[in-house]
């Protein structure tokens, strides 16, 4: 059984905060293929196209037949634990700060032997399941857990270094005045968040969602307008050192493109909320999150951006909206690089049309807001980095890989 997660303690301002360090990140190009799989939660290894041999560690030439076509394919993650150790000494600062550290050698049913991080409730000889996870440095690592995890298995401290589990962490949800904001608040509450801070702008405007949030326990409301630098700065001064998971869920959807509807005000608002809004949040909350990336088992760990799938490919029916989402996505990549020294993960959740008032005229399939919240919480619990939520977003992601020109011509979703 796994030792239960110790409850978070009130921060003692007299104590030094542990500075973030990262696990070794020197990887070959081949090994970055693992990172691509871990980022989306797949367990895939290179399989030789000619002979079917499963390869690990990654390489450029098949260990069996010397073929050089080694596509990444989903692979059986099962295996048995051959040997284990608990390190009491490490040469690298990241692990030195976290000793003892458990490791094992797993013989995969698919063939290769794999060195893996090892859950506390694994024992030699046991059947285990491997997963590919991103480590704090953003690189893929193998992680082994029992095939049937025991009690509290999510509390494993090593696992919490790989995932960004909301349990016992404090979450800031930027916009509480939408149905999505309510669904997210409920989702994080259900996931065991320690405290939820919810922002709200435009005080003159009533919101049923905000009223529902206000009625929840463990939730505190704060004025926050992402289009107002002073407002964002003020809240960062109050909450910056407390936020462990940031959820930027603000959006502003209006139909229209460039030729058919030149509306600079709408276009500016979209940029102001999606792009400059993220920029303001990043510049004010980012430094504090990054500095608290190694602050114990409940330290800062993730920054979630709820982005439209149209950030990846412009939908001319929402042309300027798509463009501002693309700007936000690009900035999110910058944020990812800038937060990575703190071990804080930037999670981009690409969503298709939501089933809310602003998507009234969009034909189904539309996404249930609870589904969006569930998938985001699940992604954090699994430690993913990029997720496509719903049939539309998933199809866009697939078609972009298959033929970006095709989807550019034929986007009708």
């Amino acid at each position, binding site marked *: 059984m796994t030792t239960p997660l110790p409850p978070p303690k009130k921060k003692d301002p007299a104590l030094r905060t542990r500075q973030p360090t990262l696990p070794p990140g020197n990887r070959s190009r081949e090994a970055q293929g693992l990172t691509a799989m871990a980022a989306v939660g797949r367990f895939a290894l290179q399989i030789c196209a000619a002979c079917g041999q499963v390869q690990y560690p990654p390489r450029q030439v098949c260990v069996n037949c010397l073929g050089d076509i080694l596509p990444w394919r989903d692979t059986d993650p099962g295996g048995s634990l051959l040997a*284990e*150790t608990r*390190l009491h000494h490490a040469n690298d600062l990241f692990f030195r700060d976290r000793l003892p550290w458990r*490791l094992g*050698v797993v013989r995969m049913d698919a063939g290769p032997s794999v060195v893996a991080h090892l859950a506390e409730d694994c024992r*030699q000889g046991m059947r285990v399941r491997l997963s590919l996870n991103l480590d704090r440095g953003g690189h893929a690592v193998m992680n082994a857990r029992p095939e049937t995890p025991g009690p509290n298995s999510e509390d494993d401290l090593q696992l919490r270094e790989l995932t960004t589990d909301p349990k016992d962490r404090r979450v800031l949800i930027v916009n509480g005045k939408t149905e999505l904001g309510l669904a997210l608040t409920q989702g994080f509450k259900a996931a065991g968040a320690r405290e939820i801070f919810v922002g709200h702008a435009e005080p003159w405007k009533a919101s049923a969602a905000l009223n529902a949030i206000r009625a929840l326990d463990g939730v505190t409301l704060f004025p926050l307008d992402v289009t107002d630098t002073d407002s964002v700065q003020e809240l960062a001064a109050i909450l910056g050192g407390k936020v462990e998971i940031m959820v930027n869920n603000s959006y502003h959807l209006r139909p229209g493109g460039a030729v058919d509807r030149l509306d600079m005000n709408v276009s500016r608002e979209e940029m102001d909320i999606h792009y400059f809004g993220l920029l303001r949040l990043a510049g004010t909350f980012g430094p504090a999150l990054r500095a608290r990336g190694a602050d114990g088992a409940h330290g800062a760990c993730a920054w979630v951006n709820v982005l439209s799938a149209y950030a990846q490919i412009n939908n001319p029916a929402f042309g300027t909206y798509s463009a501002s989402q693309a700007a936000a996505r690009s900035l999110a990549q910058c944020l990812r690089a800038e937060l990575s020294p703190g071990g804080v993960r930037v999670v981009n959740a690409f969503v298709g049309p939501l089933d809310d008032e602003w998507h009234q005229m969009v034909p189904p399939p539309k996404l249930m807001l609870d589904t969006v919240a569930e998938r985001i919480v699940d992604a954090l619990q699994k430690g993913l980095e990029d997720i496509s939520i719903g049939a539309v977003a998933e199809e866009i992601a697939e078609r972009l890989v298959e033929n970006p020109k095709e989807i550019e011509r034929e986007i009708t979703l």
Partner: protein
Amino acid sequence: MDPVMGKPPARMGYEGVAVCVPVTIPYSKYSLRSAHWFCGRALAELIKVAGIAKDQVDGFCISSFTLAPDTAVGLTQHLGVSPRWLDHIPMGGASGAVALRRAARAVQCGDAEIVACIAGDTNHVDSFRKTIASFSQFANDAVYPYGSGGPNASFAFLTDYYMRQYGARREDFAKLCIAQRDNALQNPHALMKRPLSLEAYLDARPIADPLSLFDCVMPCAGAEAFLVMSQDRARSLSLPFVTILSTIERHNAYPDDPIQIRGGWAMDVEGFYDLAGIGPEDIDFMEAYDDYPVICFMQIEDLGFCGKGEAPEFVRRHDLTTTGDFPFNTSGGQLSVGQAGAAGGSLGLVEAIRQLSDSCLGAAVTGARHGLISCFGMINYDRGLCSAAAILSRGSG
């Protein structure tokens, strides 16, 4: 046997080859010197003892991790030598026996007359960490990011598996480590100067379960070297020498074993003793590669002293000190002398030359005629890839 080509040709022996001038550049835990210094001083010592000029050495076998970015090539200019035969052996702990067999063939074939085999490394305060942080592509991608334990973690796995599979106990590993420490106490070069007790071994600080402090070698700086030449040349220089009865070398053996329980020795052991014309029962002492005790157990098994999984019982039944019935790592081995990088792969070989040419620094094995040297190196991913061995015999110089 190849059904088309018939029986493979018989291996040539090492007739006429002499191995001599065992040299050690004393070890230190850390050094400000470079690997070039250690290799250069080893060459200076070799030619001084041999009574030859620098330019009479016309072949070099070099092994070093910390020489980087240089290789043996850069070293020639550094040391001002113009050899006609040059080899750089990047095999770490296996480099000693591999250098020996290559140099021997070069001398036999006349490609070189006198080959200096030099293995040396420095140890700066941070060089061990740097070496293991970029040891191999597979290690970078699939081992070092997992706890950055280096070889400690890799050998912890092998030890854990071996103990459960074959019933080895920590006391069995302790017996080997304690015997080697006893041997080391008479070797002035050994960095470990105090006896090791069973209690001290068992109570030592844990490093990577089941390994604790005295299971792990201490990285240090130093060099080991020797010369290979014809026996006629050795006699003309009045150098005591030893002869080579057999050698083997194997890389990436048994890749399908899920975890390492044996090394390449097991693949080649039969031919090894056939060429030597003697068997394990004729071996008077063994110098095995000992960065961790579990690998010693595998070598004892794979080189025919007992069956697979029987080394724990073998060690319980034998006395491994220089006066015992199975003298083992007679200079103290790396576990007690220190691991001077790639020189660790030649420590046992140089000690064997001393044992068989009556030039021991420490205790001599009485009446020793045949010594077995076994080498192992390079944990590239999950196992050591290089294995080699040699049997040396007292020469008739």
